[in-house]
């Protein structure tokens, strides 16, 4: 059995979370609240040391790049929500972030999309390519909502499309089952190999 304090703490956390399987209980809640608290504290301290300090302290104040004053003011305006009646000031920062995000989607997502479309123009010379092409076209038809599904051609296409989507979801589901076990396995190794020293 391990004598490492760290391992013991890891084991207590692992068992604590696993007790949720029996039913929700006070022991589990300690860890549930801890993870929210821990990650919030971590993120903020990280952000301060790696961003706020170098950019405000070094670049702005020491090197004189005063353009950083703009995001600093925008950022401070976010906190106006704690002053009754002035919360709307935070919208400037939100507008900046949302507009910039939308610009990124419009600017950068078209090329990967075109790559996908380009790869769908394949020569229909093998059975695999025919199935692939058929499933691409029909699954698109299934998601095409601007034309009524009652039209016979659309009905047929979207039915096959539904099968294609179901197969895709089935493949995802099969993988998801394995994925969850892949994550559980190391926890079991911790309990039995590292902590109890059995097998391994």
């Amino acid at each position, binding site marked *: 059995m391990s004598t490492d304090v760290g391992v013991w703490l890891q084991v207590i956390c*692992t068992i*604590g979370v696993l007790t949720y399987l029996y039913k929700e209980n006070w022991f589990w809640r300690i860890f549930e609240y801890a993870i929210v608290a821990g990650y919030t504290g971590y*993120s903020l301290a990280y952000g301060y040391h790696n961003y706020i300090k170098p950019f405000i302290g070094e670049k702005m104040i020491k090197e004189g790049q005063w353009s950083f004053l703009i995001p600093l003011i925008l950022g401070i305006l*976010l906190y106006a929500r704690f002053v009754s009646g002035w919360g709307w000031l935070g919208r400037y920062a939100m507008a900046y972030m949302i507009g910039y995000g939308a*610009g990124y989607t419009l600017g950068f997502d078209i090329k990967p999309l075109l790559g996908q479309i380009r790869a769908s123009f394949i020569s229909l010379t093998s059975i695999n390519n025919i199935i692939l092409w058929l499933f691409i076209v029909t699954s698109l038809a299934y998601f095409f909502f601007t034309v009524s599904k009652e039209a016979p051609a659309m009905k047929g296409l979207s039915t096959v499309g539904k099968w294609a*989507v179901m197969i895709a979801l089935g493949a995802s589901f099969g993988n998801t089952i394995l994925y969850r076990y892949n994550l*559980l396995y190391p926890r079991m190794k911790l309990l039995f190999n590292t902590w109890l020293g059995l097998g391994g």
Partner: protein
Amino acid sequence: MRKELPTIICILMAVVVVVSMYFYVPNEKWKLMDMFDNWYNLLYYLAMGLGLINLTRIHVMAVVKRRPNWVYSIWLVLFMWAYFILAMIQTVDGPQADWVFQNFLTPIDSTVFALLAFYITSASFRAFRARTLEATLMLLTAFIVLLGTSPLGDLIIPGWTTAKDWILSVPNTGGQRGIQIGIYLGGLAAALRVMLGLERAYLGGAR
């Protein structure tokens, strides 16, 4: 000031990215997007402080008003601030801060994600039924992928892995691409609405 200016800022920022993406002129001196990227990154972290303040406010109120589970709220606030202060003093890579991260936060996070293995097993038994043709297709695919990915498939029927690889690379790819193209188009349409100033939900909330 309250609605028009934020909308203009929003539209302007979207246009800046699109223009610099499609009319890109390499210029070492004039790196406009680099500056805006840095601003965005800085804003992102300044915004995170809201989380700390909000969590503290909500949980202190829960304690004051003796809401259900208020005892845990004390724990949350104390641990959050203690860890925050520790990580501020020695950075998150500091010996004690890292020790807490490795031995306390990491196992909790990993085990929470692993819990779903139990639930997905129970759900497969209770709910995964071949009721209709569509459900049967989904079930069969999942079954083949499940066994084909593990070493077990090849043990039962040699070549099972090959069948799994075929399903993944042919019919699955077809279906997934339909879904993916739909996702891209949806994302682009939503972003376009923001850039045209039609989508202004972000103005809501704070009055």
